């Protein structure tokens, strides 16, 4: 929990008598919504990590004799159009969906942090050019830009990641820039500058840790929307390709059989919903705790 340690080291904090990490954790645990979110998140991450072990069947092995079977003792969530066990596919698919979300989020986070700090630190023409670029990317609805990029490059997992990163990074760059600009006015940064420390070291030592922490909260808030976008694009057939188990793609498959096998819908639908709920609860709680003026 390096980031949360740094979080509480923000300027204008009163003198702490307990370790800062503990205080953030304690506040999170006292926050009712955060407790629910944490529990949900733990449960879902546990399922995603342990999914392949827990899956009772091979998620990709078709069994045409038992296709579109309703839920039963053998197949808790029924079987899909190829007779594959839906529960196994949901369990295995979670890793795909959540893993993709985390991968994309870390890419966006990194790109946003680098571009935003370059813009914020250099100022002048570099700043103007980078921020115009950010404005332009943000002027297109991200889901539309993502659809267009995947549409042109062709559907697929790699193109999905590329498209979402291209469509999503700009917001993080803009935020980083404004955080960096704020941080430059902070007494400790000015003091360090007066002490003759170079900008590079000031960035690494004083500015970026706090900025990264602030950005992490935004990322938590954004995780729900990102997961929804991944599932949405896969649902449209633009993301993960069959036969890979992924919640959005499974949802898309189940749609074709919605009249004869409605239970197929619930398998991927419930976990997507729960993941987004967990991310929203945690993000809102973090925002409440760290920015009490807002709530």
């Amino acid at each position, binding site marked *: 929990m390096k980031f949360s340690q740094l979080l509480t080291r923000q300027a204008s904090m009163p003198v702490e008598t307990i370790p800062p990490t503990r205080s953030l954790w304690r506040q999170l645990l006292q926050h009712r919504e955060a407790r629910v979110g944490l529990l949900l998140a733990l449960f879902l991450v546990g399922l995603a990590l342990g999914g392949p072990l827990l899956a009772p069947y091979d998620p990709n092995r078709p069994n045409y004799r038992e296709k579109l079977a309703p839920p039963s003792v053998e197949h808790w969530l029924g079987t899909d159009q190829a007779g594959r066990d839906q529960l196994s596919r949901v369990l295995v698919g979670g890793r795909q969906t959540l893993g993709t979300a985390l991968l994309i989020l870390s890419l966006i986070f990194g790109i946003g942090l680098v571009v935003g700090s370059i813009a914020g630190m250099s100022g002048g023409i570099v700043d103007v050019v980078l921020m115009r670029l950010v*404005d*332009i990317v943000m002027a297109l609805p991200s*889901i539309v830009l993502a659809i267009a990029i995947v549409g*042109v490059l062709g559907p697929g997992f790699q193109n999905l990641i590329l498209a979402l990163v291209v469509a999503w990074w700009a917001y993080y760059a803009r935020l980083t820039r404004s955080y960096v*600009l704020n941080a430059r006015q902070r007494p400790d940064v000015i003091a360090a500058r007066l002490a003759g420390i170079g900008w590079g070291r000031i960035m690494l030592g004083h500015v970026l840790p706090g900025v990264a922490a602030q950005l992490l909260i935004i990322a938590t808030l954004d995780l729900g929307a990102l997961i929804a976008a991944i599932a949405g694009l896969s649902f449209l057939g633009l993301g993960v390709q069959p036969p890979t188990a992924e919640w959005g793609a499974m949802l898309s498959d189940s749609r074709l059989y919605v009249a004869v096998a409605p239970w197929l819908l619930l398998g991927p639908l419930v976990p997507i919903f729960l993941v987004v709920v967990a991310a929203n609860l945690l993000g809102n709680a973090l925002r409440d705790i760290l920015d009490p003026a807002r709530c």
Partner: protein
Amino acid sequence: MGHVSLASVQRMRIMLPLVRAVGTRVTQALLTVLGISVIIWGLLPLAPGDPALRLLQARGVQDPTAEQVAAVRADLALDRPLPVQYIEWLGRAVRGDLSVSYQTGRPVLEELGKRMPATLLLSGTALLLALVAALGGGLLCAAYAERWPDRIIRLLTQIGAAAPAFLLGLLVLRFVVVEFGVGRVLSGGQWQYVLLPAMCLAVSRAADWTQLLRASLLEALGAQYVLVAQARGATKLRLLWRYALPNAALPLLTAIGVGLGGLLGGAAIVEAIFTWPGIGSYVLEAISARDYPVVQGFVALIGLSYVTASLLVDLLALGLDPRLRTPRTA
């Protein structure tokens, strides 16, 4: 001697910052459109394969000869440097020529234009629904803060914010349309059938905006002028409606400007679920047919709509709040 009356000087002092602010905002929007055009144009060179071959194959020429390819190349100006290609493309795009669809051979703008009304109907209805819900929900929450109506609405917004439009769409399609025969799975885009898909699209925006409006209403209710009004005997309704709401409306307006992008973009997914004949479901067909000009046209139309809509929202905000007219100091 033409003298300037005090009133007209006063009017000038009010109008001048407004005109300047509007001018800046409009220029910004135009620059943004120019920037977007680079992205849209850039989609085509990004596509895999030789564009000349692609066009020929789309026209039904299976094994084009070298001469044919060279002719198309010259025709599309593919042998020229990229900046020249861009300028030429932009020149045509400004005149409304976004090339022709590979599938039908008809102009892209014409194909998309036929389907645009359905998309606008869908997102417009969704906007209206979300606004009404947010206003009602936000006001109720603020009026009964921390009591049961507030708690219930907040729980609902938590759920609503977490339900992506396509999940809702699937559920509604399965359990409302198929079970109860309300609405239609295969609609022709008529207004009678817009309500269900628009509701699915509106829910997450409504949830967002309700939360926001509640927060800003509560903040406004804590202000000094509200206290004074209360001391003078203003009713609770009057406090909310006359004093808090106008001040809370501005953050909501800004959020609406941002949220419009989500409405326009989300429409594509909802259209696909409800087979709504708008540009979203059309572009998905185009993607599977590798009809790239249509994809370009789709981004262009949505981009333009979004930029125009945000411009209008910003201008409205400028009109409502004089504080925004003086340039901000960063």
